[in-house]
């Protein structure tokens, strides 16, 4: 899952810069991944990673320290996602009140904390989280989080139960990613110098590509104003195309969430409530959000299987000896057998992976 999330992030970075140069220098691709996910022990001399979507294809060969990238025909149809890794250790951010003062390298946990920081300042308050009767409150003045129980008692997040310490950050973060982020982005916010540079360069690339198609000799002019710059077109159709592509690249279109063990520390019925909520997010037609979920919970697994989702894939990770693991894509028969096994599926794993 870490590899998939890293590749989705690399794809976004390449798309927004319209260049893969930064990953072509030696082992930058793999080093950035190992540091971010604290995964140094997992690298092998012959590690090879390949990633392909409608927009691009890239691979990394660790033996040769070689990163190769190729654009695909649909590269301009890319829609900017918010890529987010939600680590299983997320309750650490609830447990440590003065997290900001800790000296640690930039990694997935710290990044989650940074994202959560934005989310909680936006969300501020949520009533009755997932029907648990528990509410959440962020206090800006003291920069602290609290939960409020059914009887109105306020408990500091650092002193709350492990289940709430796992659930609340996950809920607040995902609520923001799939809902609040779009409202927050619509509010005017001054971009940093680096952000302006990236956006400017991207808009130039988009403009050059579309402007070159103009053939009409006309005095008509259509101006598209984006990020304080005017882009001139003689054909309305092309101006509209530019506007649409610029929006797709500059504004978050959907969330790509890589969620580790959403069930951590949760009472089984609450796991169901959480999955119901995630399924609502996935099934909402407005955004094409997608989730990659790693789970050890039979409840989460059975719940996802019984919903008969259209765009659903089940991948089984299993050991193949010598400390190596393989991943199998479950076919329809596997899915039905796993479903029929219900809560015992994890105890019969070999039956599904050895055929």
């Amino acid at each position, binding site marked *: 899952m870490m590899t998939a999330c890293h590749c989705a992030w690399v794809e976004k970075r390449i798309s927004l810069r319209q260049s893969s140069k930064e990953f072509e220098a030696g082992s930058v691709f793999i080093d950035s991944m190992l540091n971010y996910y604290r995964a140094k022990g997992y690298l092998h001399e012959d590690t090879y990673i390949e990633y392909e979507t409608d927009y691009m294809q890239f691979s990394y060969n660790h033996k040769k320290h070689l990163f190769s990238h190729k654009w695909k025909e649909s590269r301009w149809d890319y829609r900017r996602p918010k890529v987010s890794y939600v680590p299983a250790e997320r309750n650490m951010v609830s447990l440590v009140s003065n997290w900001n003062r800790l000296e640690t390298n930039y990694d997935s946990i710290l990044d989650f904390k940074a994202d959560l920081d934005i989310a909680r300042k936006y969300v501020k308050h949520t009533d009755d989280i997932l029907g648990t009767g528990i509410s959440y409150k962020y206090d800006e003045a003291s920069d602290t989080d609290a939960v409020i129980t059914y009887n109105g008692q306020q408990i500091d997040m650092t002193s709350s139960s492990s289940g709430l310490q796992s659930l609340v950050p996950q809920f607040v973060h995902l609520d923001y990613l799939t809902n609040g982020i779009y409202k927050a982005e619509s509010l005017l916010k001054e971009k940093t110098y680096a952000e302006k540079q990236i956006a400017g360069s991207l808009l130039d690339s988009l403009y050059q590509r579309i402007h070159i198609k103009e053939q009409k000799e006309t005095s008509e002019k259509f101006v598209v104003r984006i990020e304080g710059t005017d882009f001139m077109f003689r054909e309305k159709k092309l101006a509209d195309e530019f506007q649409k592509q610029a929006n797709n690249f500059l504004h978050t279109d959907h969330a790509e969430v890589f969620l580790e063990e959403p069930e951590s520390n949760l009472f089984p019925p609450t796991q169901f409530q959480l999955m119901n909520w995630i399924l609502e997010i996935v099934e909402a037609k407005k955004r094409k959000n997608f989730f990659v979920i790693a789970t050890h919970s039979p*409840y989460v697994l*059975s719940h996802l*299987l*019984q919903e008969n989702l259209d765009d659903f894939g089940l991948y089984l990770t299993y050991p193949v000896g010598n400390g190596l693991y393989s991943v199998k894509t479950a076919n329809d028969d596997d899915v039905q057998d796993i*479903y029929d096994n*219900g809560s015992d599926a994890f105890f019969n794993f070999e039956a599904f992976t050895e055929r």
Partner: protein
Amino acid sequence: MKQMNVFPECYVDTNLVGHILGCKVKHKSTCNEVAKAVNNADCFAIGIIDADKRLATMDDGFYVLTRSSEADGTNKHITMYAHKDGKRFMFTIKPAMDKFILDAATSQNVDLEKLGYPSSLEGFKKQTKRIQAAEDSKLKQLFDMIGDYPELQQFRNTLKYLVKKQYAIDVDVARQFFDGMMSKDDLVAILQSN
């Protein structure tokens, strides 16, 4: 309180079936767990699942006993399966229990909003998916208000008959209750005769 060997899956199914039978039932987390429980039972057992979920493989001995039908012959909501052993039964609700209840409320002119429920299916589903729906007293009130809906009456009579007779079930009598050919009075007579 002893739990009856009746296995519903959704919270609202659990509430309805418990309300009909006046006892605790064994709620299952997912449809596959209902199927597993009924498939593996070597005693009297009833499973109740929604038809819009992935169907778990049922034991080969199950067959469709009867289904409630619209005037045009299409399946209304409930299909009843019986096992060849005569002591295990499954009910599937099409598309799901919340829609069945909503249709019953519409037919009985019950205003859901007066009970504090949204009248739209999506809104109602949000309420019935909550854990609290398994015990919600407002839902029990709603079940009483829609009690005259024929398909619910027949489902209720069938369930009561099955649970009462357990190992002495006459499958043909069960089918007649389900099809509405036998009524609540017949049920009372049968229950009193024992």
